[in-house]
């Protein structure tokens, strides 16, 4: 019991000393040099100006957001029909680009198939059997200069 009271007294004493020291610190802070208090004043005024600008910006922002349209079915379309079309206009070039790339890929694949078919046709319709091209002796014959 006595130790509890001691602890309480000690805490009270500590708080009193701390408050006294903090008061003295405050006294010293109040006597800051003039150039520092001036710079603090300028900073404060800048901050207040920025706050005013931010408040103005916040006031104008809801006005542009007021075009949120609530449809009878409970559906809300943000920004109304014009905004919807604007978004579509932004997406449309991207869609055209993707479709174009797909078409080009299809066309290239078809061209490759046709070219391979032409080569096959020539090979198969030639007098020379296709196996001859795999023969090393025939390859040497082709490389050798004509007599």
């Amino acid at each position, binding site marked *: 019991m006595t130790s509890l009271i001691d602890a309480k007294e*000690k805490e009270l*004493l*500590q*708080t*009193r*000393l*701390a*408050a*006294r*020291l*903090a008061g*003295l*610190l*405050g*006294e*010293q*802070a*109040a006597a*800051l040099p003039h150039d*520092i*208090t001036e*710079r*603090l004043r300028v*900073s*404060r*005024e*800048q*901050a*207040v100006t*920025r*706050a*005013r600008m*931010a*408040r103005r910006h*916040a006031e104008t922002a809801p006005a542009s957001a007021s075009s949120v349209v609530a449809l009878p079915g409970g559906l809300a379309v943000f920004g109304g029909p014009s905004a919807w079309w604007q978004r579509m206009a932004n997406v449309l070039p991207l869609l055209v680009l993707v479709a174009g790339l797909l078409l080009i890929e299809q066309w290239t694949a078809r061209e490759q198939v046709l070219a391979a078919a032409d080569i096959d046709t020539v090979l198969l319709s030639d007098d020379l059997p296709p196996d001859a091209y795999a023969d090393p002796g025939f390859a040497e014959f082709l490389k050798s200069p004509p007599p």
Partner: protein
Amino acid sequence: MATDKELSDFLKSVEKRAFKRTVYAVRGDDAALDIVQDAMIRLAEKYVDRPAAELPLIFQRILSNATMDWFRRQKVRNAVMTNLSDFEGSDEQGDFDLLETLEAVEGTLGTESASDAVSRSQILALIDGQVAELPARQREAFLLRYWEEFDVAETAALMGCSEGSVKTHCSRAVHALAKALRAKGITP
């Protein structure tokens, strides 16, 4: 939403303490002024819609963050970590009498005497120096709790620690200051 006047009055009421606290942390007037300005502008731009009553806590949080940002920019992370690790100090707290120090402080400074104005300013500077010498967490707890007058819960929230830690930091800070003042000759 805080009005311009409320914001201006609030900033006026905290700016000097904020500056001093930042000087303790960064040990430079110019850097401290930049940090306080940065914190004021962040408060004004981002929290202008908050009620005036919420500004003190928000501002202290912004100021702490701005100070940490400054340290990051300075790339002295190791130095900061050294300052923050204040768990190594000795725990001897009961070896001297707080009451004696309190009486000494009040005895020396409590009565307004014109004759020892110089001595008074010297003692104020001494206290200022001793606060600057405290480990960062102890100093932060002491200043938030007793200078900014936040309660234990608010101080704990601002410092990101438990209420018990705040009490411990404060107690250690007060004892360290009392001990340092006695060592400097402020005795009854």
